[in-house]
Structure formats: C-alpha cells, structure tokens
C-alpha cells in the first residue's frame, strides 16, 4: 500500500518550528546555566530536539535528522550530568537551532541553503562532543537500512529455545514462526519434553522448544530479524546447512555501509546552489515566523467560555419564545415586563458572546516579545555593548492581526535603541552610568488603548544633529520647533542620523517605515527623549479593530458616533462660557481651562437645528495630543458599533475614521477625534 507522507509534512514543519522556538526561549533563560535547577528545562529542550530528529527522516528530511543527532547527543550528555551546560555550549546550541531552522525553511521553500555554515556548526558540535573523555565518538549516525540483494537459495537450521518468561513481554513464538514462514519453506519440529505435569504447569510460562529448517532466499540477518525482539529471552542457534559456513552476515554489513555512503552523498540538499547571505537567511527566518497567519491557537478556556455563552443564549431564546406563545388577549403588563427582562438578558448574552468571539483573535503579546531576548543578546554582542532587557506585561492580549504586524516595527525600534541609543560600556562609565544599559519594553492597557513602550537609558536624541540633518536633507522644519516636533523629524522619509550606516540598523528601513507600519494598524508613535538619559518610544494601538464603544450624537439630520474612550465629559454650555479668541476661533471655558470649540455642523457643512449655544451640547473629547469640545445638537445613546471601513466602501474623509450601520439600518459616520482636535 502506498501512503504519501507529504500530507503530514506541513504538520511536521509547524511542529518543528514550534519546537525550535521552545528550544531557543529555554536556552535564552539564564536559569538554564544553573545546574541545580535546570533539569526540567534541559529535558524540554532535549525532547524538542529528539522529536525533530525522530520525525525528520520519516517525513523525508533525513539530513535534518542527521544534523540534529549531534545536537541531541550533546543535550543528552548535559541532561544525564556527563557535562555541564557552559556558556559556550549554550551559544553553540543556539547556533544549531538556527541551522536546523534554516534547513527546514530551505527544504520547505526549495530555497538555497548555506551549507558551509551548517558544516561549520556540525563540526563545532562534533568537536565539543569529542572533547570529552571516553564515550562513543560523535560522528553522526548514518542510517543503515539493509538493502542487500536477496541471496541465492539457502537452508538454515534454527534452534529456538525461549525462556519461560517469553510471554511476559507480549511476544508469542507462534508469531515468530509465522514471520519465518514468510521467508521460505519452513519445517517445524516442536520439542515438548520440558512440559511439566498439568498440576505443575504455569499457564503464563513457555515450556516448548523448536528446531526449524528454513529453505528459501533468506540472509542470516533476515532470519535473525525474526528473533530481534526476543534475543534476550531465548537461546538461539542459527546455522547454514546448505553450504560450507559462508559468512553472509559480513557481506550484508559491507553492503549496508555502501548504501549509507550513498545516502551521505546526497544529504546536504542543493549543495552548489547560490549562497545566500546571512541577512537573507535572517529575513527568511523572520518571514517564516509570520507564515503561520492561516491558523490560530486558542486556549481551551476561551472555547469553553464560548460554549457556555451559546448555552445561555439558547436559554434566553427559549424564555422569549415562551412569552411569545402567550395569546394576544392574555398579554398584560406582567408579560411585557418579562419580555423586557428577556430582551435585556439577550442583549447581555449577545454582548458577552461578541466579546468572547473577539477574544478568540486575541493572543498575548508575548508572541512578539519572546523573540526579543535573542535579538537583544545577538545585537549587544555584535556591537560590543552590554544590555539588560526588561520585559513587562507579556500577557497583554492583542488582536492576532495587529500582533503580527507589530513584530517588524518593534524589532526595528529595539535595533535602533541598542545601535544608536545605548552607549558602549566605557562611554557609559564615563557618563557616570552603569556599564550595562537597560532596555525596557512594556505593554499595558491604557483606557481603550494598548500602549507599548520601548525605553532605553542611553544617550538620548541629539536635537542639534537632527536639525542639522533635516536642513541638509531639505526637510520641512517648523519655526522654533518644540522637542517633540524635532523628534518626529526622525520619522520623516529619507532621514537617517547614524554617522555610518551600520550592519544593524542601516538596512534601508528607517523610522519612517516604522511609523507607516504602526499607522497601518491604526496606531500612533510618540517619541520622548532626554539628552543623556535616554529615549522612550511609545506605540499606542486601539484595543480591537472591529468593534467600538461609541456615543451617538445628532447634528442636523445626521448621526455621528464619538468613540467612548475619547469622551471626557458632556455638558450643556452657557453663553458666558464661550469666548472667541483671535486666531484660535471659539473656545469653551471649562472650569478655567480653555478648550477649542469645534462645531460639527461647521466642519461637515450641515445645517444645525440649534440657533443658540445654550441649546446644544458640548462633548469634551481628548486625543493623545490635545483636547476639544465638539458642539452637537443632541446626545442620543451609547452603543457598541461594528466598524466598517469608509475607505474601502467610499473614500477617505478628513475627520471621519469609519462608518457603521445603526439598528434602524441607517449609516452613521464615526468621528476621528485625533483629527478633529488638531483642526484647531
């Protein structure tokens, strides 16, 4: 029967990449070097390597299995306490993880592979294994499946005397005889002389012995294979009786060696293909990690919660149905009250279900954070810097789509912080700072936003240099720019202040791309910096991209939605609260604070039904930068709205971030509070 194993390759690859990620993260934990408590971690790493090695050959990746063998052997020795896990061994294991990943990616994408790098790592592992006293050499075990040509007719005499315990391992002489019978003609003679009297017979013991004669094209190895599993549970004698004792087993060994050599020759896949640079491999490795966009892992609790909520929904529905069956004449105030209760319950169920369904798309930001320790470690050692990485809020959940798009900008910000921000140890000491810089990456909920901060205690941004560079590049610089405006300049396309383009940050991707990437996921990038004390970059992202808590407001005949998270308060203004200031338009005096007054009817050119300022309502909103009081005709209600893209369905409109469909079927526009607050 032919079974195509390629259908399992995808699963094998996914599983292997996961295993490699796990190995990497365990290896990066400094606790792993502490031999008193690293047992379980090393076991975990070993199991991951072992799994890859064990499955690789089965799914047609023999060369991966072979490479991993050395890694596994090394891990096994560490696991069994034969050698400690030194810093060197850790570095080598991390390197090996990269090599295995490269091999799998190359095999998957049929792309070229840096065979020299693989060979180097393999040799380094072999060298490390051989540097130990005693024990077997580290040469990778070659697959030596025997495929020698069938020999000519031969006759074998086999004396098979099982030990009494044979049955205890689930073995059965009958099956062994059956196996032999498949090899040729078998003459069977049973010796039952050891059989005791019935009263003394132990039914679970084997008392019989056999003398067998096999005639057919079988090698000694094939005959021995029949007894492979019971070798230690029987006395066995195999003699060739048709010819002078020719040592066939020696021949077959030689044949096996030959075949394994052949195997070795074609192992390193696509040997002479173009040699990709390291950067290229890195990029593909990163790309690989993003390739799994098609599926999502969801915690079982989340699924259980969904099931529970659906259960409650069914109960509410049954309750409403009972009320609906009431005859019209019998319908009274009590029924009405129950109907209202039922609907309220239904609303709660729907909302909870909605939240839970959206929650399925939420994954912890650790998905991105977990790659940073490795990045920081590699970068710091390349640049000769010392960096302590502090991660906070790894459990903060974000939409899967957002998290995937966050990986690149975040990686770049970390690169920047280490390359340009944190100084070399000597320079730090001269500046009176600790040798090792601290890079802190923090994720947290803040109102309706997720905030991700990347802060370092490095040299900070240099205002003069940025301004000089901006002038040199002919960029638009406002007059007397504030610090914040200066920092924003580094996000302008074509800007780069690095004195020389380094291998790390100078890859043609600047902060402008970072900002674009963040804006593409509806986020905002803020930069704060104090010379000598460090730089903090903050990414603000909306919690979810699909649903919004909003307040509906009316202006003329139109309904607008104001995002609830932006609203500070709503009030009915008095005429003496409103002033007109030249150059700034109208402002609202809010307990001594002057807030720009933005009339939505003016902004969107709508007729307002309110003549007097006292007749309308001011909704005070806050964006990251500023505040404003939106003047509307009326507040209507608070609800959750599903955001539909206006750009996809119509076109971009200033002041509007999207649209939604109301319960009565009307379209309402969602206000872009950031833009409205900046209009003044």
């Amino acid at each position, binding site marked *: 029967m032919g*079974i195509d194993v390629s259908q399992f390759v995808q699963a*094998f690859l996914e599983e292997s990449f996961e295993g490699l990620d796990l190995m990497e993260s365990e290896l990066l934990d400094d606790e792993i070097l502490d031999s008193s408590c690293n047992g379980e971690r090393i076991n975990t790493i070993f199991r991951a390597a072992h799994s890859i090695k064990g499955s690789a050959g*089965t799914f047609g990746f023999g060369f991966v299995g072979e490479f991993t063998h050395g890694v596994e052997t090394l891990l096994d020795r560490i696991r069994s306490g034969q050698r400690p896990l030194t810093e060197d061994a850790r570095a080598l294991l991390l390197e090996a993880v990269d090599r295995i990943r490269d091999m799998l990616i190359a095999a998957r994408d049929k792309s070229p592979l840096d065979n020299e790098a693989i060979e180097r790592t393999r040799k380094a592992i072999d060298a490390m294994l051989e540097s130990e006293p005693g024990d077997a050499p580290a040469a990778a075990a070659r697959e030596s499946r025997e495929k020698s040509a069938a020999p000519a007719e031969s006759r074998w005499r086999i004396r098979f005397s099982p030990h009494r315990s044979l049955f205890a391992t*689930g073995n*059965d002489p009958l099956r062994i005889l059956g196996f032999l019978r498949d090899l040729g003609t078998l003459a069977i003679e049973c010796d039952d002389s050891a059989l005791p009297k019935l009263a003394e017979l132990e039914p679970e013991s084997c008392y019989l012995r056999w003398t067998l004669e096999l005639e057919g094209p079988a090698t000694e190895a094939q005959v021995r294979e029949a007894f492979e599993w019971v070798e230690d549970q029987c006395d066995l004698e195999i003699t060739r009786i048709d010819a002078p004792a020719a040592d066939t087993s020696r021949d077959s060994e030689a044949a096996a060696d030959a075949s394994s050599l052949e195997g070795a020759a074609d192992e390193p896949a696509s040997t002479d293909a173009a040699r990709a640079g390291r950067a290229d491999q890195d990029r593909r490795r990163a790309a690989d990690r993003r390739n799994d966009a098609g599926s999502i892992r969801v915690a079982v609790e989340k699924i259980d919660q969904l099931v529970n909520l659906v259960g409650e929904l069914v109960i509410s529905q049954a309750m409403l149905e009972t009320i609906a069956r009431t005859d019209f004449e019998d319908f009274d105030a009590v029924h009405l009250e129950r109907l209202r209760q039922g609907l309220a319950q239904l609303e709660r169920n729907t909302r909870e279900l909605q939240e839970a369904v959206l929650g399925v798309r939420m994954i912890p930001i650790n998905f991105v954070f977990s790659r940073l320790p490795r990045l920081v470690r590699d970068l710091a050692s390349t640049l000769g810097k010392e960096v302590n990485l502090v991660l906070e809020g790894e459990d903060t959940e974000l939409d899967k789509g957002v998290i995937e798009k966050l990986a690149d900008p975040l990686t770049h910000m970390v690169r920047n912080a280490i390359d340009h921000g944190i100084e070399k140890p000597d320079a730090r000491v001269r500046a009176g700072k600790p040798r090792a810089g601290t890079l802190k990456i923090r994720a947290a909920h803040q109102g309706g936003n997720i905030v991700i901060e990347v802060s370092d205690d490095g040299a900070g941004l240099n205002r003069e240099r940025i301004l000089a560079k901006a002038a040199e590049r002919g960029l638009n610089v406002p007059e007397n720019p504030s610090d914040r405006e200066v920092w924003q300049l580094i996000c302008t396309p074509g800007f780069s202040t690095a004195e020389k383009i380094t291998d790390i940050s100078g890859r043609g991707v600047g902060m402008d791309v970072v900002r674009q990437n963040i804006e593409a996921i509806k986020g905002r990038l803020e930069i704060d910096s104090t010379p000598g004390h460090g730089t903090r970059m903050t990414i603000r992202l909306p919690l979810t991209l699909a649903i919004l808590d909003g307040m509906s407001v009316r202006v003329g005949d139109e309904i607008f939605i104001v995002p609830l998270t932006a609203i500070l308060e709503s009030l009915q203004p008095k005429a003496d609260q409103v002033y007109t200031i030249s150059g700034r338009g109208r402002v609202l005096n809010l307990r001594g604070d002057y807030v720009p007054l933005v009339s939505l009817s003016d902004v969107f050119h709508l007729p307002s039904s309110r003549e007097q300022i006292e007749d309308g309502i001011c909704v005070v909103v806050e964006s990251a930068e500023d505040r404003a009081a939106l003047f509307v005709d009326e507040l209507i209600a608070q609800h959750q709205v599903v955001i539909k893209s206006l750009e996809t369905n119509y076109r971009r409109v200033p002041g509007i971030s999207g649209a939604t469909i109301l319960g009565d079927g009307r379209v309402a526009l969602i206000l872009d509070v950031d833009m409205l607050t900046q209009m003044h």
Partner: protein
Amino acid sequence: MAKILAVDDSASLRQMVSFTLKEAGHEVVEAADGVEALELARSAPADLVISDVNMPRMDGISLVRELRGLPEYKFTPILLLTTETSDAKKQEGKAAGATGWLVKPFDPEALLTTIKRVLG
C-alpha cells in the same frame, strides 16, 4: 481488524501513524503522552499499543511498566518507537515489558510490516 493505541507527543508523527493504520483498516486511538495513554488504555482495551519513548509527563518506558501491571495488558503487544542509537533504551524497554520496537525514521510500509509481526 485490530484496535490500536498510538502514543506520541509529536502530532505529525501521530497523524502519520494513525492515518497509515486506519488506511490498513485498523481502529486507532491517539494519545499525546503516557498519562493520557494510560487513561485511554484503562477505559478501552487495545489490541496493540505503539508508543514513543521520550514524552512529557510520562515517558514510553514508564507507560509500558504501568500497562504490564494491568491484567488486561499482561500479554498485549506493546511496541516502542525508538531512534537507531538508543540501544540502551531498547533494553530498558524490554526490561519494562515492551514486546518490540520500531526504529525511527520509518515509513508507512515499515510500520505496517512491523505490526503484522505482532498482530499475527
């Protein structure tokens, strides 16, 4: 046709084993580690157990030992999936009561040939 319990922490390998055995007409129950396997083995006796050695929670060798302690599994064939280098593991497995082993890597055909040896 036989009822087979396939135990492996690697989902891809488990899928492959399971698919191959099902194609050959067997009924297959899957478990991801020894603990899960033992539970399944207790609730629904199998005619053959095929298990990986290295697994989290309970490894294959301990699983064999536990299974042999159950009256229904006294003589049930139990095969371990090992790698070619683990001779010591083979012996350890035998000592625990394993019937035999299947050396990784293996292809579906080798799997079917091997189980024929224990299903008679």
